[in-house]
């Protein structure tokens, strides 16, 4: 069942077309990856899918409900959550508070209740704290609850952002380069986490450069190049697609190609 349908999506910045007429379908419960060389428009795409950028043209529909053009907080209310390539952790809060903030949509916001700290509010706080602790445990940050985010290492912060995004109880989770800047061990941990989330039924859309992770974890891959969809398919189909190889590595010069063929002959 298609969870998110994207049609004719375009984004221009002045004269620069970052995304040009992209159609996508994201199936519920699967892990989708978006790959492509730098500058292909991956982050612009994610920014539009999370409502941060307004598309220049096209539609974004979550289960048939049109979202394009709405402010970002409505995308979140509809069930789309995301992490950021350049960390956007709340450094002025502790790890627990970061994740609790993710529960915003499930909490009541009466100003009077907040000011007076009513019993109902206190119950809500206890519940949020419990959920947040649970999520920190899920991403492996148990025991870091009261650590200020600005004192945590990079790898932990990447996982913290995932926990915070999960706190919104999303239908669709967008992960923008979750393994960027991580060493092999940390990347494997993210890998395992993503697989666990996928098994739990969360629909995941992943933007990544780490090919090992992508191939390992994805049910479906979309390749972007210069703002357009180059191809899409299963990991096997995509990795052997000549256009993909060319986009990443460039076409070999004819003379060199002959030499290479001669060498292999």
């Amino acid at each position, binding site marked *: 069942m298609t969870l998110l349908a994207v049609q004719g999506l375009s984004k221009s910045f002045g004269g620069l077309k970052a995304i040009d007429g992209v159609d996508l379908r994201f199936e519920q419960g699967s892990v989708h990856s978006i790959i492509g060389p730098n500058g292909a428009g991956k982050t612009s795409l994610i920014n539009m899918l999370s409502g941060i950028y307004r598309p220049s043209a096209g539609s974004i529909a979550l289960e048939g409900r049109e979202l394009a053009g709405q402010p970002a907080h409505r995308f979140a209310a509809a069930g789309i959550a995301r992490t950021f390539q350049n960390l956007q952790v709340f450094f002025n809060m502790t790890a627990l508070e970061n994740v609790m903030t993710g529960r915003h949509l499930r909490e009541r916001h009466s100003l009077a209740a907040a*000011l007076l700290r009513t019993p109902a509010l206190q119950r809500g706080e206890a519940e949020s704290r419990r959920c947040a602790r649970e999520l920190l445990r899920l991403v492996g940050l148990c025991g870091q609850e009261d650590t200020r985010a600005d004192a945590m290492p990079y790898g932990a912060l990447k996982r913290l952002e995932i926990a915070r995004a999960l706190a919104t109880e999303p239908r669709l989770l967008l992960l923008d380069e979750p393994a960027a800047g991580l060493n092999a061990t940390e990347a494997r941990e993210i890998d395992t986490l993503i697989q666990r989330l996928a098994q739990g039924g969360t629909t995941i859309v992943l933007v990544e450069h780490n090919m090992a992770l992508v191939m390992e974890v994805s049910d479906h891959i979309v390749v972007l190049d210069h703002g357009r969809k180059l191809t899409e398919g299963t990991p096997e189909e995509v990795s052997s697609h000549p256009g993909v190889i060319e986009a990443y590595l460039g076409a070999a010069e004819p003379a060199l190609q002959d030499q290479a063929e001669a060498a292999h002959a």
Partner: protein
Amino acid sequence: MPAAATVSEAPAPARAWLARPRSGGTLLLAALVALAPLALPNNYAYEIAIQVALNAVVCIGLNLLIGYAGQISLGHAGFFALGGYASAILASRYGVPVWLSLPGACAVVGLLAWLLGRPTLRLKGHPLAMATLGLGVIISIAITTEDRWTGGPDGMQVPPLVLFGLAVQGEQVWYWITGALLVATVWLALNLIDSPNGRALRALHGSEVAAQTLGIDCARFKLQVFTLSAMLAALAGALTAHYAGFITPAKATFLHSVELVIMVVFGGMASVFGAVVGAAVMTVLPQLLTALKDYEMMVFGAVLVATMVLFPQGLVPTLARWWGGRPQ
């Protein structure tokens, strides 16, 4: 939840409860307010204490806006003065009893802040500073110019607060009123910070983009805290007016707005107690300096510069850091 180590023999849960700012800190402040009269030698000292309390109320609200929500306002004196003038005008021109004109003034200023806040808070950084500065200056000029309503540059008389048929006058009584208000404001502010609304505010300071992706309607929360801080300023302004018996446009100037921001920054951003300390120090200091008469402004400026150079994070957070990593 920050938990400072205490050297008490009390059982662990009680110790933890005392260590939390909301409970222990508020209790400490309440005790201070209750016991301070023992140390206040004369009416003049009471007067200063009252000023400190009222300034602290404004600063707590302003701190929520600047320190927690990460916005800026260089025009809050405008709300302070408007609160005073609104209550004074309602009471003297329209015969509204003061216990009614006080909340009335807050409501009027709150409404104005809500209306002006919507376009203003779409701005960030320097444009926001400039817009709030402009609003404050326009309010200040309007108050000075519309002398039929406000008495112009010389100000106007303000009727006293009358409760249960008795005029509330005298330093002692006002001390208790403003002291209680201060403790209540501190308690409310601390509650707010540790709530979904508070986290929304801190989130939009931490990363507005990320906050949006968590479903936080940033514009709504900015407006909420702006309006709240304006109403607190108005309340303090109105009480100041009824306590002093008169009000002048000097309360609305850019200089006064700047003084308020300095109190907040000096005491420490994102710290309710920092706001109180900042208000206290910045209110008392000029009083100590009046002895220096002609040198007052110079010395005040020099002290300000020296303090910000030495304590760039503000007084309370820097001191807290020195006392060993107590989290904010």
